[in-house]
């Protein structure tokens, strides 16, 4: 179970995540929102790359930034960047070595097989010994996914995992996610592509300007309408409510005079 309690992140006076409270306990959960909605900031706070201004994130009761929890998570950043002169295989080995419980020293052959299995799973086994600088955008995306699996994580946090993939690649990655779900792993993904969410997520969180507008099942949210239509309705209703509140705040001092 992942709990967000009054999570807030502000850069000086600009609030990018605003009093975010949510509990998630489903196999695949999707944060859905426009670019700049605050999804990446939330994910970076979960994995300990950013400190919240206030509020907490706990996973199974422990703070998510705790080093012990980090051993149980896999994270794929948005538009991943790599050490260009490494090969895909070397990069996985390097990432794996950063976990001190991987037994890589004790059984290097078994670990090599583990890396090969991951690379086969994400479809870049053939390029395992090529330098990353020769990889296409889609291959980089797959390697970013692969490194998130290297420690057999219980929780996976994927930031726009299907960006830059061709239709076949998207299909393959979705299948990998469903396989991981059946293995008992919990997946959080950020996306602005509605079709992905509809297809693989049990629940969604609609994030807009750092606020959580809705959290719950995709089916209940859609209520028989297409997801895109419902998403626009909710976002526009929020925009109207914000404008109304701003107008009221502007008129109130005048009325008081």
């Amino acid at each position, binding site marked *: 179970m992942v709990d967000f309690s009054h999570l807030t992140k502000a850069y000086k006076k600009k609030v990018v995540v605003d009093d975010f409270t949510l509990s998630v306990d489903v196999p695949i959960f999707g944060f859905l929102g426009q670019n700049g909605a605050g999804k990446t900031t939330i994910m970076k706070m979960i994995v300990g790359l950013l400190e919240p201004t206030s509020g907490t994130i706990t996973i199974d009761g422990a703070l998510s930034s705790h080093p012990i929890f*980090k051993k149980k998570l896999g*994270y794929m*950043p948005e538009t991943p960047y790599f*050490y260009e002169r490494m090969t895909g295989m070397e990069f996985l080995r390097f990432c794996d070595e*950063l*976990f001190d419980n991987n037994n890589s020293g004790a059984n290097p052959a078994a670990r090599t097989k583990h890396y090969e299995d991951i690379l086969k799973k994400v479809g870049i086994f053939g390029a395992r010994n090529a330098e990353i600088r020769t990889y296409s955008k889609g291959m980089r995306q797959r390697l970013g996914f692969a490194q998130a699996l290297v*420690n057999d994580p219980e929780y996976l946090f994927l930031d726009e995992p299907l960006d830059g993939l061709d239709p076949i690649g998207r299909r393959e990655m979705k299948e990998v996610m469903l396989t991981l779900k059946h293995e008992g792993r919990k997946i959080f993904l950020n996306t602005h592509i509605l079709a992905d969410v509809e297809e693989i997520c049990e629940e969604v969180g609609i994030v807009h300007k750092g606020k959580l507008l809705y959290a719950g099942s995709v089916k209940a949210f859609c209520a028989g309408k297409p997801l895109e239509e419902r998403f626009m309705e909710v976002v526009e209703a929020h925009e109207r409510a914000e404008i109304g509140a701003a107008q009221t705040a502007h008129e109130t001092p005048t009325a008081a005079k």
Partner: protein
Amino acid sequence: MRNIFIIAKNTLKLEIRDKILYGIIVFGLLYIFFMLFLADLVLKEPAMVKAFGLTGIYFFNAIIALFLGTTSFFKDVDRKVVYFILSKPVSRAQFLLGKFFGLCMVLLLTSAILGVAYVGVVLFEHAGFDWIGLVAILMQFLEMALFLAFAIFVSTFSSSLLSIVYTSGVFFLGHIVSQLVADAKAIGLGGFKLLFVEILYYIFPNLEKFDARDLAIHAVATPWTSFGLAVAYAAVYITLLLTAAVWVFDKKEI
């Protein structure tokens, strides 16, 4: 410690694949082998040959330290490669220290390559095995490690280009600051001007403490007290710089 070692090892592995580094080393070696021709020009005068060689090693290592110190750490943060590393059980301090020690290993390696070439050329010129020159190269390495620590510290809060400017400035001031104080006292400077020069002296590292080249050129061994003092000075200064770098990096929004 384990994570620091893994990041240091990875940094060494990556940097030695860099073609720019190879280019600098190749030019360094060509420069040292040029001593063979220079020796004939200066009538086989060993002091001239050694001066030429040790200065060359110093110059090329300074270029490598400036290049690595101002780009390696900054690139990892700027290009967000750190996201992969820091989302794993690795602290920011471990990452920064791993980068520092990895870059030190690269410098140690380049010092060793250029040092072996230097000793070989000096031997070839029948000037004997120059172990005093090797001590001078070791002291140069300490200076470069300090230089690296400063470059990494500056990289935690400024861009790569600005780091080059700041680090070069410190390199320059670090070599003249002790002379500045001595000159200021010699000409009877007082009041605010002397205070300003003394403040500079205490803020900037005194890099002259690592210069054992003049002694080595004349085959005079560096006193162990000077060597020990240089090691202690480098250790204290590097510790302070890295502590400050970790403090700044810990607070940085990445």
